[in-house]
């Protein structure tokens, strides 16, 4: 069973000629089949965790370890991590002018699967997945994220999640900026992947709204660069009622 283990992870960024530590010792284990919600206020370091795991060059790991099935993730390049089975659904996916969605998806699937998918089954697979996400087939011929609405970008991220079938999926604020209908559609996509039992999901969110559609096994409160509390789904209810105040105050004085 695939396991992502994060141990005492410290991460810094360079900003205004100064080094700022954002993650201050994160410990977390995500196993295949599990869904972990990471909730926290703005600026708590949730997205930094997501991008650090994916290998974004902006973030410097100062100490700690991340392993996937015992393999050192931090030693891998960004594309190696993806091929090893890590997937990051981004909050702000970038536009890639000149590259069509269909070309992009096929290139990506070829890289991750290690061989080009058979054309006939591939076309069918893409078509069906797009239909389930209520994406117009014409989408495939548009350039990646170019002129996409917020909802289209998120559907496109989840489309990739479904096609690439990672071992560990990190969803960075996939719910932000979505109306209820889009949120349902996107959540259904995530749930289809979860139901296979073959993915461990790290669901990063600011709001509890998405947890109505994607039921987490574990909820972690993220504050001041580390996990401040962990519990079951009931922790999310508590956050819904009380907000993050108790955690941010503690963080500020720490």
């Amino acid at each position, binding site marked *: 069973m695939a396991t992502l283990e994060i141990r005492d992870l410290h991460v810094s960024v360079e900003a205004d000629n100064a080094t700022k530590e954002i993650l201050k010792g994160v410990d977390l284990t995500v196993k295949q089949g599990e869904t972990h919600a990471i909730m926290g206020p703005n600026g708590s370091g949730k997205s930094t965790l997501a991008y650090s795991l*994916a*290998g*974004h*060059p902006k973030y410097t790991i100062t100490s700690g370890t991340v392993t996937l099935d015992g393999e050192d993730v931090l030693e891998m*390049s*960004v*594309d190696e*991590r*993806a*091929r090893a089975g890590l*997937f*990051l659904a*981004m909050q702000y*996916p*970038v*536009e*890639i*002018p*000149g*590259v*069509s969605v269909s*070309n*992009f998806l096929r*290139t*990506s699937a070829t*890289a*991750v699967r290690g061989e080009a998918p058979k054309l006939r089954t591939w076309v069918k697979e893409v078509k069906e997945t797009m239909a389930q996400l209520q994406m117009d087939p014409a989408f495939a011929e548009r*350039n990646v994220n170019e002129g996409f609405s917020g909802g289209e970008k998120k559907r496109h991220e989840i489309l*990739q999640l479904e096609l*690439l079938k990672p071992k560990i999926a990190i969803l960075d604020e996939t719910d932000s900026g979505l109306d209820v209908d889009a949120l349902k559609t996107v959540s259904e996509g995530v749930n289809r992947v979860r139901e296979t039992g073959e993915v461990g999901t790290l669901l990063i969110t600011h709001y509890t709204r998405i947890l109505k559609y994607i039921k987490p096994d574990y909820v972690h409160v993220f504050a001041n660069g580390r996990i401040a509390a962990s519990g079951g789904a009931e922790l999310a209810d508590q956050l819904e009622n009380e907000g993050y105040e108790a955690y941010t105050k503690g963080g500020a004085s720490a």
Partner: protein
Amino acid sequence: MAEAQISPVGSTTAGSIAVAAESTVATRMSAPPSFDVADFPVPHGREEEWRFTPLERLRGLHDGTAVATGDGVKVVVEAPSGVTVETVGRDDARIGKAGTPVDRVAAQAYSSFQHASVVTVAKEAVLSEPVRITVHGEGGVAYGHQVIELGAFAEAVVVIDHTGDAVLAANVDYVLGDGAKLTVVSVQDWDDTAVHVGQHNALVGRDASFKSIIVTFGGDLVRLHPRVAYAAPGGEAELFGLYFTDKGQHQEHRLLVDHNTPHCKSNAVYKGALQGDGAHAVWIGDVLIQAAAEGTDTYEMNRNLVLTDGARVDSVPNLEIETGEIVGAGHASATGRFDDEQLFYLQSRGIPAEEARRLVVRGFFAELVQQIGLPDVEARLLDKIETELKASV
């Protein structure tokens, strides 16, 4: 040959110059067009038409110090039947009909060449094979002139290849008879030391179609002026360009479409990718719609993709309209960067960095390459783009 001549071009060309001289497109030039190099002052670099060009890298083409060495370039023309290929002297009447030099180097070339090559496609001849012209630089300084003339309703594809090393100033005249169709592919695949400056004049006959594809990969400095004017109504011009500007290269394309005649069309699309320190691409797109040119339909676009730090693009579209009675006129210019975030996004989907770059660059050029309509040229361009990418980083 007489039947291959087209009707009264001389007066039309002269007329277009007279009107253009009053327009800002023309007045931005430091001297009016002329065949005589003495009519142009030696540029100092601050003139509008020279301000982007590193004069010191012209190796004397601009100030009269570059003397032809006699072994500058070797020109070979391979033509299928239906085509006449001649080498003629300076006084041949067919030279200079399509346009007049607009800057000192073009005039220097016109004033200095010894022999011109004239390729004539007979009236109504439809060529099954392209005319292939290879211009191979042998390391010297050369001045040249090429004329390609199509009789009425003739159809031809001409591929001009530039390779090797040279300091070359050469102009090309394209003269299209009524209803003629000419596609010209000019590939600048020079060694990285070559200097190539030239003015390409096309004079498009009634209902004729001219398609120019300029592909610039090589050279230390390449500066081309593709120019189009119309001899009679109903003409169409498509100007496509593709350049891949590497470290230290200066590649400059200065277009002018002179809509001097009613009911003509033009469409210009130039795309360039740049990579490496000191890579400099310049694109000037001048479109002039004269008062007489009612019913004009024109569009021009320049797109640049900057792949690394240290590269520079100057893109200046300029549309000048003297009549409102037109079908359409537009221009667009945009320069984008392939940045770290795009690379990260593609890599995060398992795509290795080198392949990510290739995906983006191929995508960027694909649409343009598909418009060329010549499968062997398209395949060659895509190969060449791959080679350029491999040479990078």
